[in-house]
């Protein structure tokens, strides 16, 4: 008996706009919120939707990400009949190919999907920050007897030209899809989250693979082609917090939105179940020193704070020494801020060391990134 739903998470992107953060790891493996990696959100959402089979499509710098995904136990996918597998490009009888696009990544793993034999396939991006259950979207897909359901976000019409925009009729059936339109006629932006009826998806992928002119991309090729074939595509209106952290500014901003002073009904609520799951680092408990000043911060276990820390997100194994000041910054695991140093509006990559009395980005107002090799962006 096949499965009802299999989730496929696209996690192969390079994330070039995150500069040194993605020099050796894929964007979905970048640290976020003091404790998490970006992909934890998608994988936790899948787990919390009672979907127990997931393939994670990795490509660029996949070693860390593949290792992190492991057998999926961090998100509970190691239970009976559960599957969590990293699917990197591989050599086949016809040769070895990189994934040429989002659709090609799924096509190259069609044997995985055939093996799972699902009724529906949920396709997600591994680099989005949001907390949801896909239950309602799946229910809508089944109820409306759609071939494909696309999760959409209502965006400011002025911003719409940055997104893939959907036009719908009065029943939210999709009538048109335009990738980054110059003059958008709708504010419904595709989130890159799709539910497909697998038989329809399979046929579309096979046809697309034979099309030499195709870029093998869901937004550019698969969706428009299905519309042209009069398939039924439906929009699912997502309500809630959702962020694409593709740039240093957006990554910094999304981290800052987690701070106590920024919390609202709009932002992610970690305290409400279901939870976002992540790796337990076996860190020692976090310690706040006798002379430390900590205000409006999110700090993970394993951190040790002796200095001043305000409006910042601090990861495990970070040390802020006495007399050092960290403000409006995101410190990834293993960062050390030596005595008397000052850091402002910065993202510090894993294991970066700021020397004694060194000043990073004071009063510039811009967000900077510094990594352990001292590359500054």
């Amino acid at each position, binding site marked *: 008996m096949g499965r009802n739903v299999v989730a496929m998470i696209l996690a192969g992107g390079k994330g070039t706009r995150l500069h040194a953060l993605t020099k050796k790891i894929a964007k979905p493996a970048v640290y976020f919120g003091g404790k998490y990696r970006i992909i934890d959100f998608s994988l936790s959402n899948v787990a919390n939707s009672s979907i127990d089979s997931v393939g994670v499509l990795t490509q660029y710098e996949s070693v860390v990400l593949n290792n992190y995904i492991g057998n999926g*136990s961090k998100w509970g996918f190691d239970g009976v009949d559960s599957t969590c597998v990293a699917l990197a490009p591989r050599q086949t009888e016809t040769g070895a190919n990189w994934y040429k696009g989002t659709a090609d990544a799924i096509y190259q793993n069609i044997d995985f999907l055939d093996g799972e034999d699902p009724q529906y396939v949920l396709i997600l991006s591994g680099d989005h920050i949001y907390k949801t259950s896909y239950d309602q979207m799946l229910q809508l897909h089944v109820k409306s007897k759609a071939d494909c359901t696309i999760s959409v976000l209502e965006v400011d019409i002025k911003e719409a030209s940055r997104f893939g925009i959907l036009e719908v009729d009065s029943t939210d059936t999709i009538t048109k899809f335009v990738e980054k339109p110059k003059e958008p006629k709708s504010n419904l932006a595709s989130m890159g989250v799709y539910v497909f009826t697998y038989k329809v998806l399979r046929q579309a992928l096979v046809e697309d693979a034979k099309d030499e002119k195709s870029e093998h991309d869901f937004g550019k090729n698969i969706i428009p082609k299905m519309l042209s074939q009069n398939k039924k595509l439906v929009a699912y209106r997502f309500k809630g917090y959702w962020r694409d952290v593709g740039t240093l500014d957006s990554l910094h901003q999304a981290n800052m939105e987690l701070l106590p002073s920024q919390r609202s009904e709009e932002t992610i609520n970690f305290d409400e179940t279901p939870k976002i799951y992540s790796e337990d680092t076996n860190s020692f408990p976090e*310690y706040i020193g*006798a002379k430390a000043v900590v205000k409006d911060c999110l700090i993970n276990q394993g951190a040790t704070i002796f200095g001043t820390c305000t409006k910042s997100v601090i990861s495990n194994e970070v040390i802020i020494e006495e007399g050092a000041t960290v403000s409006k910054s995101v410190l990834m695991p293993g960062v050390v801020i030596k005595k008397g140093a000052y850091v402002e509006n910065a993202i510090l990559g894993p294991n970066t060391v700021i020397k004694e009395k060194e000043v990073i980005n004071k009063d510039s107002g811009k967000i900077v990134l510094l990594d352990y090799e001292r590359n500054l962006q």
Partner: protein
Amino acid sequence: MKNVVALVNLHNSPSCGLLTEKRPLASTTVLGRYAFIDFALSNLTNSGIDDIGIMIKDHSRSVIKHMRSDNTYLKNSKTGYLNYMINEEGIHNPFYNTDLNNIAQNDYFLYDQDCKYVLICPVGIVYKVNYAEIIREHIKSGKLFSVVYSKVDNAGKDYFGLNKITVNALGNVQKIDQVDPKDKEALIGLKTYICNSSALKGAFPRLKNISNVFTLDDLMLYIQRYSDVDIHAIEFKGQVSYVNSLKKYYDISMRFKNLLINENGEDVFTNEWKIYTRTHDTRPVYYGENSNVKDSIVANGCTINGTVKNCILARNVTVEEGAVVENSIIFSDSVIKKGVHLKGVVADKLTTFVNKNEVIAEKDELIYIPQGETI
């Protein structure tokens, strides 16, 4: 170490009064993140031992709930083995519900051909030890039984309730006595025994005919006094903490807090010797704009907007704006409402402090608040 089976002995854990009334010390929280059994199990994991039996005396739900998954402590959940040992026949009879009878009821490992040595270790005695070295010394001694001891200079004050031993020139146990409250310097037995599996197996038929051997401690005393079998004595030279009262629990917790930032990583906390525990998937700590936290340990899931000084806060504790918590240990899911002032308090799980209450202990005293109370 595939030829060793380790038994974590929850039968001889001391009582800490109300703190351990409804749970064993093994699953009692420590440092906001761990339970005491984590230290014993992490010693085993870090020593390469992954065939483990947990000898449960009572309150099994609390222990099993904490343990949750084999994967927390075992390097390999297929080749490793974590087994809960309960004395099902004697669990309702305190005279019969002893560690020795627990082994007799769950003696599966004694018939395991791979099991050459049995290591029995305590929970109430916290120390960081590489058991691989201890077992090597036991094998090298050629003896059938060994006991691990520590040389201390404050036996009566800090280790009352344990046994003291004397060691002869050959390195074997010459005498076993109970620690006297007046004792100063002494060699303290750490309730840690290494037995050749065959010798332990052979002892059981003989025990049926002996009326005053109920526990492992009794067995060792009997062997030392009435048999011609030597018990080898193996010295442990690091720091040993014995938790046998609420006050000791508090003092040791605060000492551990200070050890966390000791650059020498004295004894318990070093990066090379991880302490494993189950994850609760709690978020990092929120420190609000009015938080004022000094010299404290704060576990994930907490939300702090008040003043916290010299404290240990476990998971999901909330300290509201204007609340002051000093010199206290607050267990998980507790709430300190606005205007409350706590000093010298050990508050168990799910306690709530409201109405600007002041709960302040006398100097050197502690106030314990039971689980679930609203004050």
